[in-house]
């Protein structure tokens, strides 16, 4: 009985009684210090970033979030409004495309595909996540951009031009639409791989039960699989969104880096992360550096909240269903 209890408690509970071993104390202290780096780094990152952004935070306050400017009035006026708008449009636009795609892919891989197709397709989709963002950005500028201005853009403008989002003709390949497509490519492998694990975790009996009642495969998915995996899907979407919001390189390559707010997706714009990346060759004044870091503060706050929420959901799901 005692042994069983110890086993359930895991390796940490295995303790030798008796004489003090210096080696144990050393190992404990060293490993504990290493494990604390996560917390230490989180605190240090927040502190450093806040300190550096302080001059801009003091000067502009929260008005920074609602000011549309970058270096106006002789480099004294900065604001994040258009970047926040760009970030929201690109990230949610990409999420809107990526979520149904990812759910469908996960369903295909867990419910439909024969074993050998699964063995080929699943690693390929994981591989999509391994393509570096700078390479996707390169492809975005030189291949996707011209395709949008030449073929896709005019077609969408021609047929759906009455929608505000397609209301202008794409004149340059660098635009919000290109950024949305690139971010979609980045989100799909993340969301689909989490959903795949979630769907695999749905108990066989529940699905069999629904099938035995005469449900079609889609009805099983809608009635059993989706409700069962609901909160996990939400977490996956948050993680995908975080990826989209935080992506700097590929977006800065394709979005056109323009301080402007347009409803049309075929206009160049900019996001928070992309604006930071675009300024890498140096900012002229201390205020400009502080404003740049202020953008990083917004990103940091968002990513801390989003990731904490997603991880807590994942944890709750994992403890309930024993899915990793």
């Amino acid at each position: 009985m005692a042994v069983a209890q110890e086993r359930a408690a895991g390796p940490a509970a295995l303790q030798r009684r008796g004489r003090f071993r210096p080696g144990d104390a050393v190992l404990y202290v060293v490993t504990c210090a290493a494990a604390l780096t996560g917390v230490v780094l989180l605190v240090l990152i927040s502190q450093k970033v806040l300190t550096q952004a302080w001059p801009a935070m003091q000067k502009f306050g929260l008005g920074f979030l609602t000011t549309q400017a970058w270096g106006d009035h002789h480099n004294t006026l900065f604001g994040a409004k258009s970047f926040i708008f760009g970030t929201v449009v690109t990230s949610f636009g990409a999420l809107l495309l990526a979520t149904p795609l990812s759910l469908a892919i996960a369903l295909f891989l867990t419910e439909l595909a024969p074993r050998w197709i699964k063995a080929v397709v699943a690693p390929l989709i994981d591989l999509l996540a391994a393509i570096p963002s700078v390479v996707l950005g390169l492809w975005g500028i030189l291949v996707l951009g011209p395709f949008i201005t030449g073929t896709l853009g005019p077609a969408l403008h021609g047929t759906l031009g009455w929608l505000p989002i397609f209301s202008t003709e794409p004149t340059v390949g660098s635009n919000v639409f290109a950024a949305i497509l690139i971010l979609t490519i980045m989100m799909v492998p993340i969301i689909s791989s989490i959903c795949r694990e979630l769907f695999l975790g749905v108990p066989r009996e529940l699905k069999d039960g629904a099938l035995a009642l005469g449900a079609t495969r889609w009805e099983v998915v809608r009635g059993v699989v989706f409700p069962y995996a609901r909160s996990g899907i939400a977490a996956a979407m948050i993680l995908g969104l975080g990826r989209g919001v935080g992506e700097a390189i590929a977006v800065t390559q394709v979005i056109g880096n323009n301080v402007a707010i347009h409803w049309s997706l075929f206009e160049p714009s900019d996001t928070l992360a992309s604006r930071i990346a675009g300024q890498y060759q140096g900012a002229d004044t201390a205020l400009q550096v502080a404003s740049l870091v202020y953008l990083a503060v917004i990103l940091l706050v968002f990513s801390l909240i989003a990731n904490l929420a997603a991880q807590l959901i994942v944890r709750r799901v994992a403890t309930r269903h024993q899915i990793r």
Partner: protein
Amino acid sequence: MSAQVPTADLFRSERMRRRRIVNWIVEGAATIAALIAVAVLVIVVSSVVRRGWGALNLDFFTKTPALYSGFGPRPASGIAPAIIGTLIIIGLALLMALPVAILTAIYLNELAPRKLASVLTLAFDVLNGIPAIVLGIFVFIFVVVGHGQAAWKASFALAILMVPMIARSTQEVLALVPISMREASLALGAAKWRTTLSVVLPQAVGGIVTGATLATARAAGETAPLLFTSALYSDQMSYDPRQPIASIPMFIFTSAEQADPVLHQQAWGAAAVLIGIILVASLVARWFADRSIRRLRGER
């Protein structure tokens, strides 16, 4: 009393037909979605290889980038400094990340009280979600401002990115090591530290290698942490990590912004090299992961 014969045809009713059609549509859509994802991968990789192929020759791997005035024959030009630079930056990042990650995994899996372990793991998971560009800005503020850029500072930024990944995969394999091995070692009189380092840890080597290669693959392609830490480099060969060094991602990033078609071709070539490195690393990681998990589950 005659037997009741069902009058409704269960299989041909209008309602059943509609349900089946909906089912077909959804199944078709799911299949098409998977096809789209694979097609995008094929399109991206094939355009990188097709456009980069022409740039891949011996000069490309051995020469430094040559400035071209626009007159006369173009001098031979390559990305050797960027390849060496990426190796140095990633190597240093791995050196920084690996010990921290392994010790972390040991603490979280072998020593920490469960509550504390879950809080610390959460911290690493959240750290893992911080955008790379923010990490770059952090390192810029922390060690670059006032001191200048250097390759090791880029490595530092990448190491922050790598630690959570390596720690996570090490932890997963440590958890698979049977508790009976620890019990046996302790029963033989070995101290806990001895048990952990020479009985448990060697079993987890596969997981460590997997995590390290996956983290390397991801870090090798990251550009954002390099922007503020190792971007102002010279075109000459450089091996000194105290100076900013060229790297493949930065080369692609800066070349893509130029209007020169030859530079574009070199950028595609560099992208092909980068994807090649990442592909090999991912395959190695997958192979190690499969092997070590099979071993620990007792199937050889």
